Structures are given as C-alpha cells and as structure tokens.
C-alpha cells in the first residue's frame, strides 16, 4: 500500500507494519500498525483498556516491556530508522516519552535538577523549559524531590523533561489520568503549546474521546491491537466509518445532555483470545460470515468489510421533568473524621424515593466517606442517617438485618470487591442469605438477569469474568438483597467508556423499572447528566451546591461547579450530527 503521497513523507514519523508480540505466547499485542505523524501534528491514539495503546506507544521508542518483544515492522523518524545502536542516541534526543503517572515515573530518590539535567541541555536550557511549562525556574524548585510537588507540577516536570532535548516525536501516554479537570486543562494547553513551539510530532494516547476531540489533529482508533480507523480528527468524529468507532462515540457521556449514551455489549478480547478474522466480530451489529474468517485490511483508513454502513446516531435525550417525591433516604448534619482529621462537615442531603442523586466531587473531597457512612461502613460520624423516616445507628453492625437489607452498596473496583475464591452464585447468595433469612428459589438467576448477565455465569469465578461483568455481578449481589436504596461508589471509574455506558444504562433502567432509589457517587460531571435527577457538589467535605441536575448544570452558582463545567473537555455532538 504505497501511495505516492506516503513515500514522500520523510519528515515526521513513519511507522510501518509494527508488530509487538507477547512472550512466550507469541500472540501479537500490537498487530501490523501503520502510522504517519507530521511535525507539529498531534495524533490521538484511542482505544479501550488492553487494546495495546501503551505497548504501541513504547514501541515507538523501541522499548518493549518484559514479556513483550518486537515481532516485525519499523519506526522511522525524519527518515532515520529507530533500530539497533541508534536507539539509545535517539531516545530523549529524537523521541521522548511522557508517562501515564508522573508520580511513579519520577525517581523518588533524585532531585528535580538531577532528573532534568540528565535529559541533555545546560542549566539555562533547563530553566527555559521550566518557564515554558509554567513552573518556577528557581534553585529552590530545582532542589526539590518529586514528592514535594503537586500532581499537576509533577506532570509538568515530566513534560519539561520530554521537551528538553527538542525531540521530533513525543509520545504521551494518558498524561492527565488522575488529575482533576482544571489541572488537566492546563496540562493539555501546555502540551498543545509546546508541540507548536517545537513543531514536534506528538502521539497522544487516551481513552477519553472528549480530550481527543479538543486536542488532536488526527485520530487512530485501536481495537485489540489493530488500528481499525484513522483519519483527520474532525472527519473521524463527524462521520466514523468503522462500526466500533461509531459505537464508541455513542458511549461517550454528553455533558450538555442532548444525547443518551449507549454501551457496546460484550468486551474486547485479550491478545491470546482474539478471534480469527475481524476482532470486533463478536460485538459487531453488522457482522457477516466473511468477517469471521478473514482479517479486513486497512483501506482508506478503515479496517472493515462494511465500512461506512454504520453511522454515528444521536439518540435524542428527552429531559424528564423531576416530580417531587418523599425522601427515601435523608442525611442530617453529618460530620465524619479519620482520627482527628475531619473529612465531612455538616452534610445534609435528601434522596427522593425512586430518583437518583449524584454526589459529585473530586478525589479527596470526602464522597466515598459519605457513601460509607450512609451504608454503615464508617461508624465514626456524627449526625443522622434516616431511612424511610427511621433513624439508623451509625455502625452497620448495630443495624438490624432489615435496615441493612434496605441499603446496599456497590464498590468502586470490581477487581477487588469480589472474593476470588467464590463462584458467582455463592457471591450473589451470601448477603441475601444473611439478610433475607429464607432464600427464594431462582433468586440468583433472577438477580443475574436483572443485572443483564446470563445465568450460565453463576458457576464461574470472578477471574473468569471481564471488568464489566464483574461490576454487574457486584450489582446483582446488591439486588439479590432486594434493597430500596442502592449506593454506587464510582462504579464505572475502573471500566472502559463502552462498558461504563452499559453499566450506566443498566443502573438507570433499574431505577426506572423497579423504582430503586440511587445515590450515585462520581467525579465525572458528564455522567451526572445521564444518570441523575439531582446533584450535590462536594468540595473539601462540604456540600457547596445542590439542586436539580438540569438547573445546576445550566447555571452553576458556586465557583467550583463553574470551573468544573468550564474545564471539562466537551464532546460536542452538534458537530457530528448531520
């Protein structure tokens, strides 16, 4: 596939047939990837967890983690092959890497000065770059250790480190994970500015479509180790040609609330289990026989036999007026401590029956503590938790089985909240057995089907399930106790967008169909719109704003909420619907 235009590309980055395989399985983790990035251009590399983004990103620096190795293909930067003896010289100089979590990628034992100094460039250059990323260039700052910097500062140091050697290509692997949206916005601005200043080609790895839409010039969508669609960002986002891209876009929560989100059923295969033929076939709504036998080639930027058939469809979201209802759950004047450190101060909150209240706040604001206090998991609190007019004892141990049954809790991380030694059936049954006394027939099957899981899964163990399936099991476990109130603590934050959308659909459906009352804890303001009727914004342990979602998001009053609305990247649907 050598079009005349492509052979001309000598400046910038040129990747051909790059394949990285697992050792010893030999299964390709990254499979025949072709990419071109011109100087000054930012390429967004998107895909779900495990699609091979990090592996590909590292391969662009000819680096292969333990357990992986190069199995073919080449990377050339400005016409120079990145291979053999040239690799060490080119790293840092021609190509640099900005890691996912600077907290663990900066050496804890070395001063900032040392870590910046070894990237090439003299003292004056170090200070110049520090100024460019809006960090102080003082000796005091240079003498610091990484732990003396904030998360945003650490990430800027990592960016400064990468640009010190004036590289031609820079690879950024989810550089804003774990940062709050305001810091993320500043970091993204810095990245954009630096790439322009140095006319440096950039590969920006992320799973966040909204970031891609704001930042990048071109997009490459990865699925199970292969690039399935690539092209200018605007074109791909406006009219995705591959069914996976289209469905992925439909799963992105819409901050402006004009569109419903739709999940993709199933989950991405691991490299060892990748089906023959098109890897997306088991989840693809358009699949035909041919897809299962033959791997489609990348043609005109799309890897699909039925390219262009599926389109990005906007499922219009209808704003349902909020009706008033009596409070199923009330919190009155709740304060909580860890030791002598107060994390919650005088919180009052009311959750109307059959509705969903979103508790919005960034990490450290105290949202999990509040959720745990309500569920009786954090007894060190003052104030009152009232369930259906009845005040509950602070400790879950003191609550009656009936009281405990009525409030159920779903944890953030489905990889940790399920006992790996128990089957799904035992997991789902355990709380029901304690709380219901007599277990009705078919309870497990019923709970699983409510959580949209096949009853066949009942005999499996958690490690035989995907992340999304695990979270559904956790939900089924809660449902089996037949609760009135479900407390969901960041239940989607460990999951991919497409899986997150499916879980959110499930939870919203449970509320609509079964009249379940929900407290939905999240840090993602875009999700609030989709799930909740009411929102309470938590900052430093206090509720700073509350009200019906539509009103609060339309006209936020507190500066913190305003900043959240302003700094969260928009994935503007009006640009895409035709």
């Amino acid at each position, binding site marked *: 596939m050598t079009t005349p235009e492509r052979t001309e590309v000598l400046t910038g980055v040129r990747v051909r047939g790059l394949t990285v395989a697992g050792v010893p399985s030999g299964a390709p983790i990254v499979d025949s990837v072709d990419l071109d990035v011109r100087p000054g251009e930012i390429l967004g590399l998107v895909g779900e967890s495990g699609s091979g983004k990090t592996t590909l990103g590292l391969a662009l620096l000819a680096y292969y983690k333990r357990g992986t190795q190069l199995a073919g293909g080449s990377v050339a930067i400005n016409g120079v092959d990145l291979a053999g003896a040239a690799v060490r010289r080119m790293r840092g100089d021609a190509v640099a890497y900005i890691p996912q979590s600077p907290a663990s990628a900066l*050496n804890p*034992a070395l001063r900032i000065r040392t870590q910046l100094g070894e990237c090439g460039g003299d003292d004056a250059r170090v200070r110049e770059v520090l100024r460019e990323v809006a960090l102080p260039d003082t000796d005091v700052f240079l003498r610091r250790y990484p732990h*003396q910097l904030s998360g945003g500062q650490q990430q800027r140091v990592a960016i400064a480190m990468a640009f010190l050697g004036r590289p031609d290509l820079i690879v950024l692997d989810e550089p804003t994970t774990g940062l709050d949206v305001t810091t993320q916005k500043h970091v993204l601005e810095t990245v954009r500015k630096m790439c322009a200043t140095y006319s440096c080609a950039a590969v920006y790895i992320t799973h966040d479509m909204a970031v891609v839409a704001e930042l990048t010039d071109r997009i490459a969508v990865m699925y199970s180790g292969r690039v399935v669609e690539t092209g200018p960002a605007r074109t791909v986002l406006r009219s995705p040609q591959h069914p996976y891209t289209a469905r992925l876009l439909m799963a992105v929560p819409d901050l402006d609330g004009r569109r419903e989100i739709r999940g993709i059923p199933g989950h991405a295969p691991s490299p060892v289990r990748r089906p023959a033929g098109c890897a997306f076939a088991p989840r693809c709504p358009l699949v035909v026989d041919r897809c299962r036998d033959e791997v489609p080639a990348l043609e005109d930027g799309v890897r699909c036999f039925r390219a262009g058939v599926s389109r990005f469809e906007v499922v219009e979201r209808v704003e349902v007026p909020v009706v008033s209802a009596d409070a199923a759950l009330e919190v009155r004047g709740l304060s909580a401590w860890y030791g002598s450190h107060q994390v919650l101060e005088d919180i009052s909150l009311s959750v109307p029956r059959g509705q969903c209240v979103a508790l919005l706040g960034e990490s450290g604001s105290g949202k999990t503590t509040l959720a745990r206090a309500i569920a009786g998991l954090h007894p060190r609190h003052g104030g009152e938790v009232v369930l259906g007019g009845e005040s509950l004892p602070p400790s879950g141990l003191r609550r009656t089985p009936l009281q405990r049954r009525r409030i159920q809790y779903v944890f953030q991380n489905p990889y940790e909240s399920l006992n790996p030694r128990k089957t799904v059936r035992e997991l789902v049954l355990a709380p029901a057995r304690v709380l219901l006394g007599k277990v009705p027939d078919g309870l497990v099957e019923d709970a699983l089907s409510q959580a949209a899981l096949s009853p066949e899964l009942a005999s499996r163990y958690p490690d035989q399930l995907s992340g999304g399936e695990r979270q559904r099991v956790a939900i089924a476990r809660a449902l089996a106790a037949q609760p009135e109130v479900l407390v969901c603590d960041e239940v989607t934050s460990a999951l991919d967008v497409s899986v997150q959308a499916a879980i959110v659909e499930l939870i919203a459906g449970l509320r609509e169909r079964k009249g379940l009352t929900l407290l939905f804890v999240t840090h993602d303001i875009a999700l609030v719109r989709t799930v909740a009727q009411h929102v309470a914004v938590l900052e430093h342990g206090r509720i700073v704003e509350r009200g019906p979602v539509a009103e609060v998001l339309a006209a936020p009053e507190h500066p913190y909420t305003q900043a959240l609305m302003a700094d969260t990247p928009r994935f503007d649907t009006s640009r895409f619907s035709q």
Partner: protein
Amino acid sequence: MVRLAVKRLVFGALILWAVSVVVFLATAALPGDTAQAILGREATPERLAALRLELHLDDPLVSQYFSWLGGLLTFDPGRSLVNGLPVAEFVGPRIVNSLVLMLTAAVVSTPLAMFLGTWSAVRRDRAADHVTAVVTLVLAALPEFVVGITLVIVFATGPLRLLPAVYVGTGQVTFVDLVLPALTLVLAVGPYIVRMMRATMIEVLESEYVQQARLKGLPERTVLLRHAVPNAVGPVAQVVALQLAWLAGGVVVVEFLFRYPGIGYALVDAVNNRDLPVVQALALLIAALYIVVNLLADLVSLVANPRVRTAIR
C-alpha cells in the same frame, strides 16, 4: 531527624537496661554454687563462707544487682573469678579481636552480597541468576558450623593445607588466623543479603521511573547506579542490619569452632568455668553491639529516604 535519632538512642538505652536485668537474673539463676565451683569439691565450709562474703554472694539480689550495675557504669565490671584479672583487662583485647573479625566479615560481605544481588537481578532468569539462587539458598540453609567445618576440611586439613584449622597463638591474631572464621561468617550472612538485594532490585528495575530513565536514553550503567540502586538500598539496609546484628551472636559459635581468641570464645569458656562477672559483662556487650548495629541501620534507611530527609528540615 536529630529528634528521631535521639528517640531511638534513648529507646536503645532502655532496652540495654532491660537486657542487663535479664542477664543478671539469668546468671544468678544458674544452678550450682559459685563459690563451690571456684574452690572445687575439697573446699572447707569455712573457706566457702569466706569467699561468699568476699564476693557478696549472700547479699540480697537487688543490692548485688545495683553494685554490679554501678560497676558497669564506671567501666569496672569486677574481677574474673577464675584468674583474678579485672574483667575489663581480661576482655579488652578479646573485644578488639572480635571486632576485627566482625568488621572484616561485614566489610567483605555487605558490598559483595549487594553486588551479587544486583548482578543476579540484572541477569534475571538467566543461568547466572539460577545458579546464584540455588547456591545462596543452600548456604542459607546450612548451619554455620557445618560451613566452618567444610572450610576447615577444604583449606586446612584436606589436600590444601593453606591455613590453620584452629587458632594456636597466645592472643595476637594475624591475617591467616582471620581468614577462615571471617569467611564462615561471610558465607553465613551473605546469602540473605544477596537474596533480598535481588528481590528489591527486581522490583525497582520493573518500576516506571527506571523505565523512564531508559526511555530518556541514559546508558544502562547510569540507569542502574543512579536510578535503581539508591532506591534499593533503603529496604536492603534493614536486612543488612539484621544480618550484622546476628554477627554479634553468631560470632560465638564460629569463634568456638576455630578457637579464635575473641569474646565469643571467652564467653563459652567463662560459662564453663562459672566465671559470672565475665559472663555478665560479655552478654551485655553482645546485646549492646546488637542494639547499636540496628540503630545504625535505622539511620541508614532514614537517610536513604528523601521523604524523611526533607520532612526533617
């Protein structure tokens, strides 16, 4: 940091005091009569009584303890019951001999073991690594007298008669006398340090900051020496300290085996002769050594951790 160090120091002193109580009570509880042991079976009751009076053996335990403690604090732990020499004079040169032995073992084993551990981690899963793993495991499992005897057979009594099997001098030690005992101690403490260093280095080498250092294009030497090793030293210092502290006790067996004229050998001798002042002084000395080495290790791991270092300023 100074405050922390002082706190540890005070704590160490407290432990030492507690040890002194235990040592005193334990020696006092030893079966048999000290005076009888000194004078032998034919001693007349009058002579026994006179000796008891001289040694304050009939005083209440508490007053015996305090007069002993007072003696210790003024560096006068009494006289040996066997040869009548002041304990300090008798023990002094032996302390020097033991310290020489222990220091030699420590100075040889620590860097060597840390180097071997690092090397093994760098060559992870290759032949050299597997061989190191097996050898260190076997050495760690063998009691030190077995190692010592094997060394004697190989280097002293076997075909290679290079070194003396046991010490035969009169108090002065030379290099040749030192080799086998020191080597035995090195082989006893080294394997743990090697294994710990290997495990820690493997973890550090897998870390993201080491990956990042490689991605900066730094030479592998710099990556290893500047980025990896300093981060492994902190955790390993604890194990090194435990091993070196073990030396303080382990030296007893090894000195006895080689008849090396140090405190360990002297202790065994003194116990056999019921030479109480010597036993007490030596037991306390060994405990003190143990505490000091642990204290040093704590300080090293504090200094190796920039979080602690900077929090102090």
